[in-house]
């Protein structure tokens, strides 16, 4: 926040009025959205809803298979993307800087990858993982597609947290005769642990919100998945399907949307408290 001197000229008042109008408009819409979904969703949420299978195409019953599928998708996605993400981030932060052409190519490449439209990612996942690799509509294919989507986010955030470690640590480690390998794995990575966790949480949020990329990769079978090669419907796809293809599914769609929002809120709160802790200077006391 920047405190500017108050004055009451006409253009200033106009700007003030207009910005209050815009800000309140934004708040109005979103409070409306929240209250609506909370009011309609909360009443549906019971222990039963979270632990039973959907019935009658989702009009009745619960969302247990979707929760399991979502969990499987997220786990597999992170298992694949996290090692790649950490390794790439170490390479970018510790071995390159902005002036090198190769680093610039990777950075630009990450920018492009981060903004590939999700339906295009879905097309790619369908052509590559589902058809070419023969995985079929499966949770594994969906998770691999998601991994491609969250990779830029992971790399960016881990790279940032590595770059935020003061250079003294690297210089001291070198002066003590530590090899690069040990500097990275025994000093820098443990110091960046919180930042890595933050990156993981952000990625989970992003992956959980994803829908379009999953339609044609993990499919929308609403049975409980028996293995990672089974098709599985994520919570977000469930909301989409209920509201588009199932007349009378609105109440359960509200409840699913509410569940998804609560899960994302929990992630958001964790992220916020973590990033506050990081900002407070995790490196000052060591």
């Amino acid at each position, binding site marked *: 926040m920047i405190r*500017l001197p108050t004055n009451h000229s006409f253009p200033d008042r106009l700007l003030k009025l207009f910005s209050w109008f815009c800000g309140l408009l934004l708040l109005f819409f979103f409070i409306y959205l929240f209250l609506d979904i909370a009011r309609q969703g909360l009443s549906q949420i019971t222990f039963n809803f979270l632990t039973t299978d959907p019935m009658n195409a989702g009009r009745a019953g619960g969302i247990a298979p979707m929760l399991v599928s979502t969990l499987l998708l997220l786990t597999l996605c992170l298992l694949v993307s996290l090692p790649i993400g950490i390794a790439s981030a170490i390479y970018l932060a510790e071995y390159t800087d902005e002036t090198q052409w190769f680093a610039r190519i990777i950075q630009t490449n990450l920018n492009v990858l981060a903004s590939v439209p999700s339906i295009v990612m879905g097309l790619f996942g369908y052509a590559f993982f589902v058809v070419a690799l023969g995985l079929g509509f499966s949770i594994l294919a969906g998770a691999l597609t998601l991994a491609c989507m969250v990779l*830029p986010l992971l790399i960016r955030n881990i790279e940032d947290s590595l770059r935020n470690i003061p250079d003294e640590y690297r210089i001291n480690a070198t002066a003590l005769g530590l090899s690069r390998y040990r500097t990275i794995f025994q000093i820098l990575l443990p110091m960046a642990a919180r930042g890595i966790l933050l990156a993981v949480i952000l990625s989970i949020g992003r992956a959980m919100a994803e829908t379009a990329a999953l339609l044609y990769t993990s499919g929308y079978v609403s049975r409980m998945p028996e293995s990672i090669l089974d098709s599985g419907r994520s919570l977000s796809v469930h*909301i989409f399907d209920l509201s588009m293809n199932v007349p009378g599914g609105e109440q359960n769609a509200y409840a699913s949307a509410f569940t998804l929002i609560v899960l994302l809120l929990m992630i958001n709160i964790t992220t916020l408290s973590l990033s506050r802790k990081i900002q407070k200077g995790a490196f000052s006391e060591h």
Partner: protein
Amino acid sequence: MSPLTRDRYLHYVLKFFACVSILSLFFIIFFLVTESWAIIESTPASKYILDDAWHPTDGEFFLLPMIVGSLFVMIGAMLLSIPVGIFTAVLWQFYAPAWFSSILERIVEVLSGIPSVVYGFWGIMIIVPLLAKFQAPGTSLLAGIIVLTLIVLPTITLVANSVFQQVNKLHIQNAIALGLSRFTIIRHIIFPQAKRGLLTGVILQAGRAIGETLAVLMVCGNVVQIPGSVFEPVRTLTSNIALEMAYAMDIHRSALFLSGLVLMLVVFMLILMTERMKFTSDNSL
């Protein structure tokens, strides 16, 4: 293994992993091109804008309505969300009391993480019936614009806010010391410095808006036509892919991959624009 050789191998291994992201982008483009090759080869580009209808199985590939639909929805959403987002950030940074700003911060941060499918669902439940009261059927270009505005608005506000925060504090302090008024400082010190950052953010959000799929699909009505008014239904390129991939075969599927490729290229060009802005004009301030 001696520490030195281990260090050398480590470098190679890390470099290899860093190349995975390049590889995945390469694969994306490779698969889009190979899958759409059938139609690129057999159909002249003019057919996409000159054919009579979109009947891909009969060899008619009138993609123009979808292109127009995508552009209209995207432009409409940007026209609404850019001013609202930027002025909300102005309020947040310069006009609102501190307690209000911190509430705003929390809310906008939460909002930027809400899945677009939830916005789409809410659009179906609330916005479409509301619009239907004025003019049937409710599922329309306007509904798509409103929902897409809600989707990009939180991020635009966040970006604008962080751009305002990065404005040189010294310039602002000097301006205050010179006795410039609040409006003058915002208009003539802060906005000129924030211009490029805002533009970059807006371009990136435009890319996101044109790629948004399901929320738009849920509220736009998906009729293949060039809309005569904002109350008429439209179908976007992205919705077209999502709707027809389920049963598309052969050349039809190829046409869908081609529209994916086109989307990809549009986003690619938008990114290149922002990259150029980053690297070329750093000395213009």
